[in-house]
């Protein structure tokens, strides 16, 4: 076992740190979130330029074939930088399923564009209550009807990867967001990202848009979701660590009763428990990465549950230790806290 970063991993982590410090400040992020699209196109281009978007993609389709050990430091950095762009949706989930289950043609036609930052994907996964996506095929193409709920970055995607239960297994379809019959109800999520409800009404797509042809994609989907959950665990750790740093800064600085409040033993022990939560969650993120690659979905689900719970706990304590300042929307800490609190709902979709 060896937990040190390789030289390449370290370089990437450093350049990401620089990116967030220089080009993706808290103000920049707020501006992006207030924009109608909620998507920083130039930030996305930079991430592609740095090779971050290509990292998990297969090497023979414009990617770098990065595994769990490579993704861990990257996702942690994206968490620490509170990135709002559709990285998980595009590079890990959408591209992940295509890379695992797509035909050679599909990979060749979709993945290089993704790697270059030119095509954004979203995985339309969960059916809305009572509106499971129905698939009809006539040999020449497919017709999709139904509704997907809370699709991560569904409104920012060029191509939706629409999952449907089919004959005891699963199929997935590449659907251009602008296809007639596709209605995307795009909205903010309270943790600063975007989600969408996607309605498909008689949506017609070509025969070759079914991912992997007629094969059942269930296994590839499970592997993709596990990789996504592991990545999100690592991102959560980045969020938690940053939240702890901000909280420590605050309690070391904030004066009450003639001393920094961090001198009060009760707050010290609570800060210690926040630190332990982050450390144990980091261990769980390592574990999730390993186990996702080994195909142990149950362990990934357990890790996800753990990290989600600890993340929420850290967020609660961070707010409480910030006192009044903790409930204002002005401080970065508040935004980290919202992300750490809500990340469990996204993990639930995956794990």
């Amino acid at each position, binding site marked *: 076992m060896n937990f040190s970063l390789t030289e390449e991993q370290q370089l990437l982590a450093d350049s990401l740190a620089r990116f967030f410090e220089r080009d993706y400040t808290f103000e920049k992020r707020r501006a992006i979130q207030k924009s109608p699209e909620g998507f920083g196109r130039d930030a996305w281009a930079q991430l592609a330029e740095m090779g971050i978007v290509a990292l998990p993609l297969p090497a023979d389709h414009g990617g770098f074939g990065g595994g769990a050990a490579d993704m861990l430091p990257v996702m942690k950095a994206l968490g620490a930088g509170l990135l709002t762009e559709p990285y998980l949706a595009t590079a890990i989930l959408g591209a992940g399923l295509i890379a695992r289950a797509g035909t050679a043609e599909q990979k060749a036609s979709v993945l290089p564009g993704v790697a270059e930052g030119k095509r954004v994907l979203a995985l339309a996964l*969960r059916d809305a*209550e009572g509106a499971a996506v129905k698939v009809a095929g006539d040999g020449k193409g497919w017709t999709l009807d139904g509704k997907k*709920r*809370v699709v991560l970055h569904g409104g920012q995607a060029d191509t939706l990867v629409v999952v449907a239960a089919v004959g005891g297994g699963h199929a997935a379809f590449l659907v251009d967001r602008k296809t007639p019959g596709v209605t995307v*109800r795009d*909205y*903010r*999520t*309270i*943790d600063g*990202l975007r*989600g969408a*409800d996607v309605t498909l009404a008689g949506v017609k797509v070509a025969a070759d848009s079914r991912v992997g042809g007629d094969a059942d994609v269930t296994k590839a989907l499970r592997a993709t979701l596990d990789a996504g959950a592991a990545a999100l665990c690592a991102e959560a750790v980045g969020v938690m660590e940053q939240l702890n740093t901000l909280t420590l800064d605050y309690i070391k600085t904030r*004066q*009450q*009763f*003639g001393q920094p*409040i961090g001198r*009060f033993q*009760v*707050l010290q022990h609570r800060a210690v428990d926040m630190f332990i939560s982050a450390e144990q969650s980091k261990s769980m993120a390592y574990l999730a990465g390993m186990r996702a690659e080994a195909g142990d979905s149950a362990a990934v689900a357990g890790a996800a549950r753990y990290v989600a719970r600890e993340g929420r706990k850290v967020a*609660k304590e961070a*707010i*409480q230790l910030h*006192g*009044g300042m*903790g*409930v*204002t*929307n*002005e401080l970065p800490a*508040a935004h980290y*806290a*919202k992300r750490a*609190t*809500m990340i469990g*709902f*996204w993990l*639930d*979709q995956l794990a």
Partner: protein
Amino acid sequence: MDLNYTADELAFRDEVRKFTAANLPKDIQRKVLEHRRLEKDDMVRWQDILARKGWLTGHWPKQFGGLGWSPVEIHVFDEETAALGAPRLVPFGLNMVAPVIMAFGSKWQQDHYLTRIRENKDWWCQGYSEPGSGSDLASLKTRAVRDGDHYVVNGQKTWTTLGQHADMIFCLVRTNTEVRKQEGISFLLMDMHAPGITVRPIFTLDEEHEVNEVFFDNVRVPAQNLVGEEGKGWTYAKYLLGHERTGIAGVGASKRELATLKEIAKKQQRNGKPLSEDPLFASRIADVELELMALEMTVMRVLANRGKAPGPEASILKIKGTEIQQAITELLMDAMGDYALPFDPEWNTLEGADHAPGPEYAAPMAARYFNYRKVTIYGGSNEIQRNIIAQMVLGL
């Protein structure tokens, strides 16, 4: 020892229920039950209705125009109206400045301000906290300097709840910098419309405007608005603390929210079954319900002791009450599943609610969870409450 309500208390409870059911405007009730934003007008309308009935100040002594309700009656009124979805009464005039004016105010202050509060004419807010003075309130810096028959006030208050609507503010100000910090503080009543006062919104985690910063730039306050004696402000503030706590447990509202939660848990599906049938979720609900049952009885025990001054034991009501409130907001959020995520402050009205994705009750839940993080911080953080119990009750 008699562990049941008396017949009179039961009759009063029925009267409150009946009146509230008949007179609480339906749109206001719906906003409360559905967790939508309450506008100033909503709160004023309900308080006007109560004022006409005399119940706005039912808990005041008769000599000040109240009905002299017993502690149990006050509790019954608070809890029953809350349980039916009435907005919480804005406490700053009714329950905070009023007892201070009654005990320490001048005849003029009593005649003028108490009457206006009773008739719901003035909206009051509280000027205690400052940016540098939160838990350590006695370190406050807002300065009031005597100038003839006025005080000239300079400084800043913060976390001023609903200050954007206020006509009046009661402030702790420093009138003497030469003495021990607690002894240099005075209690001043100020007109929020006076020149030199600026109110600036603070947006909370849920992007709502509920609290404010209030700036004072050479604000002239007539000396007749000083309550009691100069330098005694800290004493009055502590007196007020003892009077603030009756409703702080929020048992009625928590019961209402718990009922809402149970209804929603029946409607929400999890793994193909109603969420209410999920043993882990059901057990989380049951745990909160037990805490609330215990707390309600603890409130009754504190009330029954109200002959004596309300003791520091009452800090339990703050701690447990707010922990329960937060636990319920958390369960409500969790009951939403991924529909807890979509968020837009626009959806926080009765009209906007229709535009939200997911079930109609979903949109406010996460915002509410974040909003309610405040309850363990404000009104003396729960850490401060534990310090109080440690020192005053346990002698540590």
